[in-house]
């Protein structure tokens, strides 16, 4: 779309706000956090936002004043305030991404900005960020209010100072961003999806949420529609049937909305580089390729894996003693399918173990892939084993529970301090703000409690986590450390004032949190008990992301002993034969990368492509059995 816009001669910027960006891979050009011209295209720049740096920059310019406000408005001293402001707020980079976008938009340098956004769950959170920013400004404003009142009392009047200007600026910026996102004259949202049931469900849910926030989606683009094969082909024909079903379902869902529906065909070679992307973009202009007109029953078909592929022991996938396994990878590769299959397999083969399948992706797909209702209350699948519980975490609800626990302790503390009503209100305001990383925060608290057991439920022996796509899975793993820092900082501050104020219930709650987090962090670092399974596809973009993900996991000391290449194989027509050949090359390339990089080489597994995709308890039950290690190198 960026290429299309640039062709009109208007200055265009393509921005990726995905914390695990693939924009550079797609353009076949190295991108940085500063916009760079795209090679070979006039009027087009591209940039991958580095949220951490963007936020650091934003904060640096404002820190001095924010510290001053906090000092004036609370009974904390300079040391305390500095410590708190130095901590990184878990998940704050969503705000940073949005602020950067706003800055690009308001710079006047570009006529069009095309955003390659983060995957669904976190895009939705990002779009909610203006409200969070406004809330933050309000909290600081209350602190500032105390100061204003005092000065007015002493001097008889108040003149707005730099701090006021800052708060006004933040609030104003937030409102402008919120307004910009909701103004169809300024902001168009194109929702890209796949012609598959799970993707359509996710799209439908997202459209509903956006509608509720009064954010307009301009069109939905269904990507990778399988073209008709040149000869009858069980794979292509099967795919076309399920794609048609999904497409028709989508049409039905959006028929009252007036949303435009665009399509893009599946192309033989992964579109990378300007030329291929241009060719693909042309499809967006003319009436798009349509899925099959023929309805009909889908003949189930499982692609055969390359000859010589070997079966693998279940214990190699999930050894006994594993307590936590996370399935992660690029959006759309099949994390949820693999996570569900693994959880089912363990639960069936070890009925003595209590297994929890937990979805930490705010755009939950676990219920959809199991074809069963799943919610925040963990329960078994109808028809499934009683020792397997499924939960789609309601992060908002979990946060409220945590907040209420903290609120009691904080109220207790304020009673001791005999603080003013304004102080109490300021504290309540802070607690009202759901932090941007709320999904990850809720997930780690839930995992900690599931593994340890609580008063009301026994501990789980194994927790299988279906993570959000890469960037946020990484944030999930960083979260325990970040939250632990916060908890410990507040504990230290409490202890400092203990002789005057005492500690109370807040200290007890924080201590319990701190211990739980300490245990969780120890567990995460223990390769015998925690593993990260990377799910990927036999294609270049997922491969690049996989290699980067493995690097980040290694840096975080998280064991990643498994890489599962999903949806391997194809049919018999000429297109499919080419596809199979390309996949084999990709798998070889991936295997070479894995061997080269790490001391402990991950086990590479191939999971076959099936039509329809494995869905429902019965289909998922057999899926793990079909996973194979790739054939060894051919001997000469």
């Amino acid at each position, binding site marked *: 779309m960026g290429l299309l816009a640039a062709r009109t001669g208007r200055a265009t910027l393509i921005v990726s706000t995905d914390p695990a960006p693939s924009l550079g891979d797609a353009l076949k050009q190295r991108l940085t956090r500063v916009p760079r011209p795209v090679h070979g295209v006039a009027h087009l720049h591209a940039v991958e936002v580095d949220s951490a740096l963007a936020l650091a920059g934003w904060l640096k310019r404002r820190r001095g004043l924010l510290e001053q406000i906090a000092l004036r408005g609370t009974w904390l001293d300079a040391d305390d305030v500095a410590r708190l402001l130095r901590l990184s707020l878990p998940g704050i980079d969503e705000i940073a991404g949005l602020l950067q976008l706003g800055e690009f938009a308001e710079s006047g340098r570009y006529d069009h900005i095309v955003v390659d956004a983060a995957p669904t769950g976190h895009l939705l959170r990002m779009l909610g960020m203006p409200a969070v920013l406004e809330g933050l400004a309000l909290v600081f404003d209350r602190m500032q209010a105390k100061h204003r009142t005092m000065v007015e009392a002493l001097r008889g009047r108040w003149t707005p100072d730099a701090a006021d200007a800052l708060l006004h600026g933040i609030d104003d910026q937030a409102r402008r961003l919120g307004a910009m996102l909701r103004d169809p004259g300024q902001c168009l949202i194109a929702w890209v999806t796949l012609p598959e049931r799970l993707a359509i469900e996710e799209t439908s849910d997202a459209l509903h949420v956006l509608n509720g926030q009064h954010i307009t989606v301009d069109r939905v683009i269904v990507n990778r529609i399988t073209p008709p094969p040149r000869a009858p082909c069980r794979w292509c024909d099967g795919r076309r049937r399920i794609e048609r079903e999904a497409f028709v379902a989508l049409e039905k869902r959006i028929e009252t909305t007036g949303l435009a529906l665009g399509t893009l065909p599946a192309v033989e070679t992964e579109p990378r580089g300007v030329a291929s992307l241009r060719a693909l973009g042309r499809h967006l202009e003319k009436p798009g390729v349509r899925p099959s007109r023929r309805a009909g029953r889908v003949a189930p078909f499982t692609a055969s894996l390359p000859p010589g592929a070997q079966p693998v022991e279940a214990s190699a996938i999930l050894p006994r003693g594993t*307590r936590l396994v996370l399935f992660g990878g690029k959006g759309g590769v099949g994390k949820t399918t693999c996570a569900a299959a693994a959880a089912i397999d363990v639960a069936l083969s070890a009925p003595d173990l209590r297994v929890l399948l937990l979805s930490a992706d705010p755009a939950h797909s676990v219920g959809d892939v199991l074809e069963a209702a799943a919610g925040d209350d963990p329960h078994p699948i109808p028809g499934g084993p009683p020792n397997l519980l499924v939960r789609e975490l309601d992060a908002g609800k979990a946060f409220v529970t945590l907040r209420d626990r903290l609120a009691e302790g904080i109220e207790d503390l304020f009673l001791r301090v*005999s603080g003013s009503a304004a102080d109490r209100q300021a504290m309540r305001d802070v607690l009202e703000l759901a932090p941007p990383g709320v999904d990850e925060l809720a997930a780690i608290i839930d995992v900690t409690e599931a*593994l*340890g*057991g609580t008063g009301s439920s026994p*501990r789980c022996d194994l927790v299988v986590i279906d993570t959000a796509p890469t960037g946020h899975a990484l944030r999930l793993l960083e979260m325990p450390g970040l939250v632990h820092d916060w908890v*410990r900082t507040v*504990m*230290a501050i*409490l*202890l400092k004032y*203990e*002789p*005057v104020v*005492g*500690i*109370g*219930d807040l*200290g*007890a709650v*924080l*201590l*319990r949190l*701190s*211990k739980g987090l*300490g*245990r969780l962090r120890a*567990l995460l670092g223990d390769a015998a*008990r925690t593993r990260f399974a990377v799910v990927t596809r036999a294609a270049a973009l997922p491969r690049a992301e996989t290699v980067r993900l493995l690097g980040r996991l290694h840096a975080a000391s998280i064991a990643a002993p498994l890489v599962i290449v999903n949806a391997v194989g194809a049919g018999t027509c000429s297109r499919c034969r080419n596809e199979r050949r390309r996949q084999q090359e990709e798998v070889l390339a991936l295997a070479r990368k894995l061997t080269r990089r790490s001391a402990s080489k991950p086990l590479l597994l191939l999971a076959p492509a099936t039509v329809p995709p494995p869905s429902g308890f019965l289909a998922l039950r057999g899926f793990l059995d079909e996973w194979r290690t790739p054939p060894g190198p051919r001997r000469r």
Partner: protein
Amino acid sequence: MLIGGLRFVFDKIAAAVDTELNDDSHLREQLLAAQMRLDLGEMSQAEFDSVEADLLRRLREIRESREGNGPAALSPSEYKITGIDATFEGDEHS
């Protein structure tokens, strides 16, 4: 305003002294504070054990003086502190 501030401080000190002598909730808070310091690494396990032993002894003395009973054995595992158990359930994951 200054007078009010001083008054506030004096009241607090008086309350603290009173608390120190007679109130076991203050001792329980000190135990919680020690647990927090241990968790933060501000105190070693050996130091904590010694502080804990001392506090539990004083708590026992207060309890006995209230009940008028003879000395009773009190183990850390029996004592519940301000909403956090002195035994830490769920501690072992092995």
